[in-house]
């Protein structure tokens, strides 16, 4: 496919490939088309934390121990996120996308790869302040049941609130951020009314079909872990899941530029990676 195969340490490459084949065959998680350099790093991290000597050592362990597989999965799914991360993205969303959404009687939004839900609650707050949350529904999906459960709980560490609040203000928030949660010991528990129109579900972008038709799809910092081909396949899924003139939002360093669908979207804001399906 590319010339990388000739250059990489061959043994390591085939060990990684074998491990991914076994993970898929035995557990159904398909990481075979994830970008090699980051997959390899995660596997080597797992080799270190499992106390095995090599990738083939990890392979042996994984074959016989589902708990070890669960821990490997964590290396693929656990991420520190933040509410209103990249505040300028949410500001732009508020200013350029929300006015369009207001023209629809009903709004469906999909956060694909939502992790522990920080960006989902951010969106709920934003829609609430813009007066359209009540007629919106947010699908929050991720490959990992663990992070979905966490997202569902709406509980975030209290010590993150300073950062969340500062991001919120920079993103154009108009209320007092602390009104959205109550403090419980070291945790902040977000108001249950924010969850009313959120559907949390497990969904694998590699193997599952589209869950619905959407006005907005946000998939930020998920496809950076995919190979280009898998990225293109996922863009196909997103394109077919968006209504005409629906919006697609990517991570700040991702781009549609090198994908076959680039001509089917116009840029809403180049620097914010917000795109609109043109037909």
């Amino acid at each position, binding site marked *: 496919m590319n010339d990388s195969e000739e250059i990489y340490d061959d043994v390591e490459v085939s060990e990684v490939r074998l491990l991914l084949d076994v993970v898929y065959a035995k557990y159904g998680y398909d990481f075979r088309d994830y970008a090699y*350099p980051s997959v390899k790093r995660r596997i080597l991290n797992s080799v270190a934390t499992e106390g095995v000597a090599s990738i083939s050592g990890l392979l042996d362990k994984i074959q016989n121990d589902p708990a070890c597989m669960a821990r490997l999965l964590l290396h693929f799914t656990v991420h520190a996120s933040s509410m209103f991360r990249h505040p300028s993205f949410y500001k732009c969303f508020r200013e350029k996308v929300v006015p369009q959404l207001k023209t629809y009687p009903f709004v469906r939004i999909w956060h694909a790869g939502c992790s522990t839900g920080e960006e989902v609650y951010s969106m709920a707050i934003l829609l609430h302040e813009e007066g359209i949350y009540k007629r919106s529904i947010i699908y929050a999906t991720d490959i990992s049941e663990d992070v979905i459960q966490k997202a569902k709980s709406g509980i975030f560490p209290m010590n993150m609130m300073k950062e969340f609040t500062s991001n919120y203000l920079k993103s154009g928030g108009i209320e007092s951020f602390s009104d959205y949660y109550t403090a419980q010991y070291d945790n902040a528990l977000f108001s249950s009314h924010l969850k009313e129109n959120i559907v949390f579900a497990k969904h694998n972008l590699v193997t599952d079909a589209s869950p619905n038709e959407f006005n907005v799809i946000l998939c930020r910092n998920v496809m*950076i872990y995919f190979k*280009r081909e898998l990225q293109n396949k996922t863009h196909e899924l997103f394109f077919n899941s968006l209504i005409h003139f629906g919006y697609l939002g990517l991570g700040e360093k991702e*781009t549609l530029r090198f994908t076959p669908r680039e001509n089917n979207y116009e840029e809403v804001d180049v620097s914010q990676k917000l795109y609109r399906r043109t037909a």
Partner: protein
Amino acid sequence: MMPGIIVIGASLGGLRALNLVLGNLPKDFRLPIVIVQHRSNELDASLVKQLQQSCKLRVSEAEDKEDIIAGRVYVAPAGYHLLIDSSLFCLSVDQPVLHARPSIDVAFESAADAFGSRTIGVVLTGASNDGAKGAALIKTRGGTIIVEDPVSAECATMPAAAIKSVGTVDAILPLPEIAPFLLKLSLRNGDRKDE
């Protein structure tokens, strides 16, 4: 096939050092150059601009799955690891390594995997051990390691750590001599491609 790649890691004091190295490379330089400079997210936007002022090559921040093009300078974005996957870049938001994201080790190791003996790693000034481990892997894969002379570096920690970790590096140079050395290497690598 790309004749090779240069990855430059810098931390504390890096901006001045990078300007000096990049500023002395000619317009027709033949290899792609990747910059990993430690910094806080806020300082980010200005780095490309500041480097471009001194550099005759086109400087830009690397985007995910962007093709690597010879003769261009790519900067790892703040808050992301930059990994090299043979012909293109991959980003990741996995945990910081040695408190750094972007991490020099991560970039070095992926370059060593993808480019093998055609990898050139450069370690500049910094108050960290980042880059030491990755430099050793580049060396193991037959690549080249150049280190800024700790004696004259603004901060000696990072260059010294790289030298200690690698054992025998290919060159220990004061800043002004790094660009000419890279130019020499690029011509050699370029010729090897034409063999």
